[in-house]
């Protein structure tokens, strides 16, 4: 399979302006966490990321700031940062590749992290009537026991918690070592 052609640019800098109607402050935080994770794995702006799924392709990752010691220190907990870094990639793919226009951040423990909507989805009252559940996870560096495939499977299992809603579920797992991201759509 040839997916060497880089057919998409994931410009993390866009997060600074806010995407999917999320607050700028929050998405800027995600942008920084993502750059810290990439830098931790020795990747620089311009690095390629494999966007895995039904039709894999390589994308270019871009950001326009230096990951200095001050920034690294403020994102010292790499486990947390990996989750937020993965969130940055997942939300950018949700907007740019899948065409969603808004994301509702959900509270912990619901079985999904975000509720994605396209223009015209749902109504003002029954706010979760139409849309997609998005579950996100990150791996700083894949190991034999902690692979993207295994994590995707566990996140698909996690979506079962909220399957009662009959809403479509998406899972996005990003690994920062390669780097690689897998975006799966569950009907």
């Amino acid at each position, binding site marked *: 399979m040839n997916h060497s052609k880089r057919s998409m640019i994931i410009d993390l800098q866009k997060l600074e302006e806010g995407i999917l109607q999320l*607050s700028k*402050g*929050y998405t800027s*935080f995600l942008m920084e966490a993502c750059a810290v994770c990439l830098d931790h794995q*020795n990747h620089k702006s311009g690095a390629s990321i494999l966007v895995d799924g039904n039709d894999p392709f390589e994308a270019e990752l871009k950001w326009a700031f230096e990951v200095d010691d001050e920034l690294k220190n*403020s*994102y010292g*907990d*790499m*486990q*947390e940062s990996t989750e937020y870094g993965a969130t940055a990639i997942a939300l950018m793919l949700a907007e740019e590749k899948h065409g969603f226009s808004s994301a*509702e*951040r*959900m*509270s*912990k*423990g*619901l079985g999904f992290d975000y*509720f994605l909507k396209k223009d015209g989805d749902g109504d*003002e*009252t*029954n*706010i*979760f*009537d139409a849309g997609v559940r998005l579950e996100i996870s990150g791996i700083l560096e894949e*190991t*034999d*026991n*902690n692979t993207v495939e*295994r994590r995707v499977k*566990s996140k698909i299992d996690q979506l079962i*918690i*909220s399957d*009662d*809603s*009959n*809403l479509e579920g998406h899972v996005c797992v990003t690994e920062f070592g390669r780097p690689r991201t897998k975006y799966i759509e569950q009907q």
Partner: protein
Amino acid sequence: METVKELHDRAMEFNEKAIFSLKDKDKTASDEFLEKAFEMEKRAFSQFLKESGKEPTRSILLKSALNLAMQAKLYDEAEKLCGLGLTLNLSPKFKSSLKQSLQDISFRQYLAIRSFQLDPNELQISLSGSGVGNGIIHYHEVFDRIEKVRRLVFRTAHRIKKLPYREKLHTSNKSDEFACSLIAQPVPGSFSVTLRFGADLSHKNPLFPDFDTTSRVIDDLLQNIELINSDQIKALESSIPDEAYRVNFLALAGKMAPDGESVKSMNLVSSRGDASRFIEFTKPQAQFRILPGTDEDSDKKKEMSEEMITLIGSLSYADADKDTIKVTDEDRKKHSVTVPKGLLTDIVKPYFKDTVEIQAIKKGKKLTLQDINPV
């Protein structure tokens, strides 16, 4: 009047602020924001019930408010929401999860108001998750973990006494060194036991001669579990510089870690005077790596064309002097595998004569064990 959507949005704004506060290590502010997030989400849910009550929004808002109440440690509020949820016409699956939540809430309430005191030589272990009832749990879920904790405590005591790592431990309760008592305790929504080391037994334990030494061992153990729970592997290297002890610690901790479902969390509690130390060990087993390599190691691995292989077979032979085991596969072929120091007695030996799955690095003809699990 604010709409349901506006109330939910405000709840999520407070939720975000709670996350930011945690990032700034301001736990107090984070708790306050979580409380506000809960208040808003509860209002969104109540208003939605009055206005429409349609699914799936009704269930999602209820679950969300319940989760926020749990995170904000507002257990009475969480209990009320569960009660209200059980009176609604919800799916059987959701009702069942609310019943599980009620058990979890009872456990949390117990931890929040616990009136018991542990002695300095005691360590309480509680397990909670879908496979745990009130004082009921599958045998292996608890006793395998207790055994791992027992081994961790004794390895820690050896290390603190600056004894060189040795594979062999005197693991019988009759031996002076490995003695500990088990005290069962009824704790709502969980399975809980207390391990008592040394001091109250009739004989003198050379590793735990007094409360001070024992509490130091327990404190050291809890601190290191906190480090791995938060993925601070570099800090763990400073805390346990000896590689054999560190490999042993990581392996034992990984094997006793929650599976994320049947056992969601393993809580470890110790007391020092009026203060209690409580660690909620939640890092799932799947995220553990017994032998964490460095970037340099990975590069070396590529250069030397090493590959990771999986072997399934019976663990038929072990040589402690040569740190070697043999695995006989289904074609009766024997594979010799080198076991890194720190793993043979505590991790490999319990599987002797069992069928196991082994992950090993193959370099030339040499196999070096990376992980072992029962089949």
